[in-house]
């Protein structure tokens, strides 16, 4: 027999064997279900609380704060945001959004560096330089025209700490600011210190105050809508928001 035929024979035997191995894998319903279940298990949690994603020792306080915030969002912030969207042209809102994203980018670059993500830090620096100059102080997002600069997710110090292996600590709902954890609130304090006490410290006080007021109003529209969406499909809105926050942060830290 020629070498060629030998090869064919060998291949045939092999593929027949593989096919039969395939066919044997005829798992029944319960096995399939435990495979599914395995995808959702979180082994690091305490027994009896396997489905709970975060420690919540102050739950009764948090629930009260959740109700308070809910009222604020629905009766104050949502109308404010809708009114703002009505009186402010889309172009202006977009320009302002770009401006703030660009303004805070150095903080994100620093956190990228702290997470040893040098490539992302480089990309964000490039996009900061381009947008600040050609994009007129960041009002125009010129850098998004370059495909390689399009991915520029924000990194904060909470994510940096998460990267270092520091856990959530516990969950806490802050007045107005909403869901956070011990780790993330510490991260937020650090980022805000860096931003206002170091990076922007030479700016006039009135300018700082304007930034602190306009920035949230300009950006909160989509966030309030997201909140309303999640609340609508929730059976227990408090837990739904808590789980959503923790899942989102886990994903942000991984990226």
């Amino acid at each position, binding site marked *: *027999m020629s070498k060629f*035929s030998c090869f*064919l024979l060998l291949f*045939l035997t092999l593929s027949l064997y593989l096919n039969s191995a395939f066919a044997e894998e005829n798992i029944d319903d319960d096995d399939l279900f435990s495979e599914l279940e395995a995808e*959702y298990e979180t082994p690091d949690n305490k027994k009896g609380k*396997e489905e709970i994603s975060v420690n919540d020792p102050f739950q009764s306080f948090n629930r009260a704060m959740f109700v308070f915030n809910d009222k604020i969002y629905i009766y104050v912030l949502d109308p404010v945001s809708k009114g703002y969207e009505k009186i402010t042209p*889309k172009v202006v809102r977009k320009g302002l959004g770009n401006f703030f994203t660009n303004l805070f980018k150095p903080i994100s670059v620093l956190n990228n560096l702290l997470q040893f993500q040098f490539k992302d830090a480089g990309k964000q620096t490039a996009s900061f330089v381009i947008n600040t100059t050609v994009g007129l102080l960041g009002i125009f997002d010129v850098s998004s025209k370059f495909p390689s600069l399009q991915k520029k997710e924000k990194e904060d110090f909470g994510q940096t700490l998460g990267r270092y292996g520091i856990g959530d600590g516990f969950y806490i709902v802050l007045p107005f600011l909403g869901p956070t954890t011990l780790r993330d609130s510490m991260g937020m304090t650090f980022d805000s210190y860096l931003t206002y006490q170091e990076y922007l410290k030479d700016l006039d006080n009135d300018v700082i105050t304007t930034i602190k007021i306009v920035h949230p109003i300009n950006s909160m529209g989509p966030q309030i809508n997201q909140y309303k969406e999640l609340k609508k499909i929730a*059976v227990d809105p408090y837990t739904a928001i808590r789980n959503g926050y923790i899942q*989102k942060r886990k994903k942000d830290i991984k990226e």
Partner: protein
Amino acid sequence: MKILKVFLIVIFLLTIIANASFSEENLVPFLKSKIDTVIDIYNNSKSDEKKIRFEKEIKQIFDFNTISRLSVARKWRKFSKEDKEKFTQYFSKLLINTYYDKLKNDTDKIEVTIEYLKQEKIKEKIRVVKTRIPVADKKGVFTPIDYRLLKNKEGDWKIYDIHVEGISLIKNYREQFAEILMKNPPEYLINKVKNMVEKK
């Protein structure tokens, strides 16, 4: 010898074809056709039968038994057979209603450009199809939506979880239900879901 050679080549080619169709079912076009059907039903049905047809189609695409069982997690064992049936019935109704109402509030016709990216094999009978939807007014920004599908006993692929921006719907319900069932019996949860459905 020649005949043997030809014979072997034919079988060789046949096994390649058989193997290819065996191991790599591509679920991307499958999911696309299913979602296209739902969108078509939503956009082109007469208003009096729209919701019924929509609900019927969704029930064929999603595996609500698995969705309910996974969402309740370990406490599922504490549900009687009747509880399980009732819960599955109301919970699927709740999911379908909210999905339908969301569409209704947004627009009369669904006009969405879903980009179907790829499928990933998790296990033999578990797959993920990754898609994304462009965010309005934001160039180069997308909302990633992953569909998780499983192959049931009948050999049909059905959706059992959706991840929007990395957030799993099932994981979210698992925590909600665990929180509720920690202090309350199954009937409490069933009634809560039932009330939500009947309020509409």
